[in-house]
């Protein structure tokens, strides 16, 4: 699959990809504090239904338990973490140090992000870092893994065999540039890609065609990002407030067309139809299901999508 066809990390997620299965990941947002029990409840909900779970890094710049700490708890409790790391809050010294710490704690997947601007969070008065962007972070961690050197060129003591991922947003602007940015991320070191949640299927397929034309589907494992909509209210809210997400009018009409108490079920049906459609899309190697504050629906979605049981790979 990737250039040398060799295992990079031996993580479960990587093994599932390399064995040719459609992979399934979800998101597991850490608590806004040190409430381990709350986190463990979420872990129990998703355990066995996903190959790995993304642990967000202070997403939308709201302070939460660190992604390293929460990822370690996931690993201890039987769910493989994809530790997210943003450059908003750490410079390259901290990022590399955190990478080593995470690896030492048994974390084998990492998603490299720039991160949401602090303006959106609960500390808009904080100073950001942005020493690097996500592409530079990818390049740095890949160099640590593949060349055994930190950013300064100094040698790394002990190997770091991690599986690195990146996000791609096919729905932001300028459109013709989005696939180039994904190519830049893959070139920098992304082994896998998780896309922003897909609602506009026409645009997404156009994006995938451009990706295939560039051969990107053979250079990285591309996962389609999906977020089931709980209600027409949520759909309208996301349309208005989440930059780079456009929910087509047809979906909004469909949700609005059923009574309020049945909208959640309709949202899940839409998500399942999207999964069915994308299973046929060449170059899609898995699904990243972001059920926002709705983790309890993950088992149902995975089962109804025909993606259960998850493969056991050696």
């Amino acid at each position, binding site marked *: 699959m990737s250039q040398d066809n060799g295992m990079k990390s031996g993580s479960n997620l990587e093994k599932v990809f390399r064995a040719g299965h459609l992979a399934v990941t979800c998101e597991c947002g850490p608590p806004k504090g040190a409430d381990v029990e709350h986190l463990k409840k979420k872990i129990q909900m998703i355990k066995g239904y996903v190959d790995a779970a993304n642990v967000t890094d202070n997403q939308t710049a709201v302070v939460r338990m660190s992604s390293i700490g929460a990822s370690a708890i996931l690993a201890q409790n039987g769910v493989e973490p994809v530790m997210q790391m943003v450059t908003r809050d750490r410079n390259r010294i901290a990022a590399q140090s955190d990478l080593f710490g995470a690896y030492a704690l048994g974390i084998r997947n990492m998603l490299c992000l720039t991160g949401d*601007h602090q303006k959106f969070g609960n500390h808009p008065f904080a100073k950001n870092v942005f*020493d690097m962007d996500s592409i*530079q972070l990818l*390049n740095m961690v890949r160099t640590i893994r593949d060349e055994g050197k930190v950013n300064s060129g100094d040698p790394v003591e002990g190997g770091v065999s991690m599986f690195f991922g990146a996000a791609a*947003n096919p729905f*932001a602007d*300028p459109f013709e540039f989005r696939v*180039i940015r994904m*190519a830049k991320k893959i070139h920098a070191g992304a082994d896998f890609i998780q896309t922003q949640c897909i609602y506009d299927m026409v645009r997404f397929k156009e994006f995938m065609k451009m990706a295939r034309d560039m051969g990107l589907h053979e250079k990285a494992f591309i996962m389609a990002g999906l977020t089931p909509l709980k209600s027409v209210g949520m759909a309208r809210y996301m349309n208005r407030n989440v930059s*780079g997400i456009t929910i087509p009018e047809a979906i909004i009409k469909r949700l609005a067309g059923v009574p309020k108490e049945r909208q959640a079920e309709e949202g899940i049906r839409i998500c399942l139809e999207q999964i069915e459609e994308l299973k046929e899309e060449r170059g899609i190697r898995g699904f990243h299901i972001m059920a926002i504050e709705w983790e309890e629906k993950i088992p149902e979605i995975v089962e109804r999508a025909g993606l259960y049981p998850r493969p056991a790979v050696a």
Partner: protein
Amino acid sequence: MITAERKPLSELVECVRPYGRILLLGCNECVTVCAAGGRKEVGLLASSLKMAFSKDGKNLDIKEITLERQCDPEYVEELAPHMGEAEAVLSMACGCGVQEVARRFMDKPVFPAVNTKFMGASERQGIWSERCAGCGDCVLGITGGICPIARCSKQLMNGPCGGSSGGKCEVDAEMDCAWQLIWDRLKALGLEKRYEENMPAKDWRPGRGAGPRKIIREDLAR
């Protein structure tokens, strides 16, 4: 130029309240161009302060002087004959000018009357916007003449991020996405291929990465 905005009158009133005689300083350079602290603004502020205090029955004695450049010791020296009378100085120059006055006159309290904002350019009358972050290692030659460090909210070197929508930045719907501007310009120049190369992590040392900076031109410093 260096841009600035005058502080609120109430804050300035509190700064000078303990004093009876102050020196109010303007600067004829950048703050004049951005209408924050030139001769005209000095006059307006002096009137406002006098009025504010006269309501309380206090007569504030204000000496108004606008220097050619407040960041230059040669011009700041012109203040020496007037400094004896003043109990405090209120400077409408940028932070550089305020500090130069404070450095020269050690025993006088000096207060800033403006908030120094950024290095920017005039978009049109009355509107200025940030253009340069003074990173010390200019990349404009490869970014189509638009600076991602000063003009991208996340200082991305390989943008635009997923928050670029309709040419605007997700941080503020009124703010242009710098990377959309870069992309458009590179396309206009037929140079979009250049963008496909990854820009390496920046060495911040020429910027603030190595502490406060100094330029020494041996040929001029002698």
